């Protein structure tokens, strides 16, 4: 599924080469060093075996946008890439809510919006943006690894997430970078918008969130509580559930993205 999706996006983007304007899209990136990472979803121990006993995975070093991509940055992108303007985008690549909060193809709601995270963008659009910068969307594991921050301040991150869940969506989003960064220098991973990942729509599951038995592969165990690293980590469940509810052409009011590149 994800391979097919990437292939379609790749086809759509082959004609694009990096241009001078693409350079303007550059934004500060944080260096995420290599390290050990224990995925939230455990691998199946194999047929006939019980329990989970996962060794941590080794993550390579990578760079991650320090901030979610803003409306302002995305405006520069659609100026340079007209096929991603609201009036021209193909329904296959973005549903009818694509950039619905903008006033026009090249017009933001107001000046303030330029520094707010761009939302109502599909996976295809987000990936196209990143590719135009010579980057790509982060893998879910990379995104989660950046959030895990080597275990630093995890209680705080969890609480921030819960507080965010407990408040209705604000009338409008805050500008990016208002909170404090984690130890890698990454801002706004939680508490501002949900974010697309490269393998968002393929990662999950059936949509039955408690199913732990119908597939051997742990990734398909959805968000059932067996086979996860920490069943008490509600915010993690919520992130995976959100990702699994999305299809690649969906655009949602509170889903944005950031890009990832090689170190």
């Amino acid at each position, binding site marked *: 599924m994800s391979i097919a999706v990437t292939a379609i996006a790749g086809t759509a983007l082959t004609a694009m080469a990096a241009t001078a304007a693409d350079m303007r899209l550059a934004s500060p990136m944080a260096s995420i060093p290599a390290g050990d990472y224990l995925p939230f979803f455990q691998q199946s121990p194999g047929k006939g075996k019980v329990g989970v006993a996962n060794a941590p995975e080794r993550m390579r070093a990578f760079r991650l946008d320090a901030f979610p991509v803003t409306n302002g940055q995305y405006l520069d992108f659609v100026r340079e890439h007209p096929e991603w303007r609201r009036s021209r985008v193909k329904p296959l690549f973005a549903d009818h809510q694509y950039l619905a909060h903008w006033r026009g193809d090249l017009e933001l709601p107001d000046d303030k919006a330029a520094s707010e995270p761009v939302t109502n963008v599909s996976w295809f659009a987000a990936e196209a943006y990143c590719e135009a910068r010579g980057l790509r969307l982060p893998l879910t594991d990379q995104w989660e690894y950046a959030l895990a921050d080597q275990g630093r301040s995890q209680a705080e991150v969890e609480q921030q997430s819960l507080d965010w869940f407990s408040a209705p969506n604000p009338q409008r989003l805050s500008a990016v970078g208002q909170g404090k960064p984690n130890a890698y220098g990454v801002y706004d991973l939680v508490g501002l918008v949900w974010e697309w990942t490269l393998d968002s729509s393929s990662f999950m599951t059936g949509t039955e*969130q408690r199913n732990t038995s119908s597939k051997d592969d742990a990734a398909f165990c959805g968000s059932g509580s067996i086979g996860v690293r920490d069943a*008490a980590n509600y915010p993690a469940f919520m992130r995976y*559930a959100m990702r699994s509810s999305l299809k690649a052409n969906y655009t949602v009011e509170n889903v944005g993205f950031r890009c990832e590149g090689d170190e």
Partner: protein
Amino acid sequence: MKTVIKGVFIAAASLSLTFPAWSSSREENARAEIVGSEEAILTDAPAVPPAIKRDHATKVVVHLEVKEVEGRLADGVSYTFWTFGGKVPGKFIRVREGDLVEMHLENHPANKMPHNIDLHAVNGPGGGAAASLTAPGHTSVFSFKALNPGLYVYHCATAPVAMHVANGMYGLILVEPKEGLPKVDREFYVMQGDFYTKGANGEKGLQPFSMEKAINERPEYIVFNGSVGSTTGDQALTANVGEAVRLFVGDGGPNVTSSFHVIGQIFDTVWAEGNMSTPTHNVQTTMIPAGGSAIADFKMSVPGTFIIVDHSLSRAFNRGALAQLKSIGAEDKLIYSGKTSDEVYLPEGTGARVAEQPSKAPPAAKDKSERIKAGEAVFANNCQACHQANGEGVANAFPPLAKSDYLNADKVRAIKTVTGGLEGKLTVNGASFNGVMPAWELPDEDIANVMTYIYNKWGNTGLEVRPSEVQANRVKKN
């Protein structure tokens, strides 16, 4: 028609069949021909959609909109509820066995979360959850055949399931038997749920969800129909003497079961766990599992206020699981004399009652009007259940505070009553009482506020009670 049914029923009963004669088998319902189509009538609690008059199966289209909304959990306490239809509990859905139900789950674009729906009335993976995970701004559609009659809970089953349910994502769907339920005069929808706020019970403001309390199954609030006092005072259920009343009761949980009881009523008929095959009779308290239901029928024989509780009583008196059913009409002294004073249910003796201690001291009121305002919330949270919103109390049970001679005669005695409790015979405004008033372990400020509120309502003398007076006259706990 009725006679025929009765005959069939007797024949069936004599064969010791456990399945009722008026229900079809699963196979029959699966085959039942669908004729026509209609939009489901959906209602918010305590209302129930009208009984189904159709004599055939049809396609019922249900549009259920998921909305995340900030609302009132208790006086001065708000919470971000996740709802099926804008309120807790979710919309009541009523279909007939054999119907084809087409569910449209609409996740409002302004919502933050993905949601889905598991209806216990469904035979299929996840009860529909597997077919309905829906991102904000999207709609999922699936359909199911209502094969088994009964009263079923539906709820969100998106991970983390307990959190979605704890935020209010549950409701009831009635799959009515072909021949309908026995006719009654009034039907009501009551659903219990437990809430896990970061602040302790009574702590004011918008309260975030506490994951820790949810996992440890330690709710701060356990309520009927989504908030403390949702169904009391002006919002109480009402019926007339002589009417037959039916309660469709559900327990959304996520964790706490319900010892469902109506004080001063015996359920004539209960369909336990919402199953239609084995009604039982003359039931005092019926157990409702989390994710389960019951139907309770009874006749209003006498007038009065009947208090609906979770008879696991701390839940009723300390966490909010308390509603009221008011019956209006003529007394029947033979059934209930109205003169005995020991019939009212009082769970705890003097001093046994530990009031909810707000974890933060309440802000000091600057003047009398602030004091009255703050006292209103304290009253609603702690006093209103017995003394009533209008201060009139309940005859033979809870003394009136309105124009109360006992109260107005002696402020110091009143402070001692609130802080130390009172037990035994008492005469207020010429009426005698013999009950228990618990000792309230609230901060001086709260007691001063609530007493000032009471003194300035309902024709009382308009005194102000200051925290220093409470401190000076407080009955100390042993």
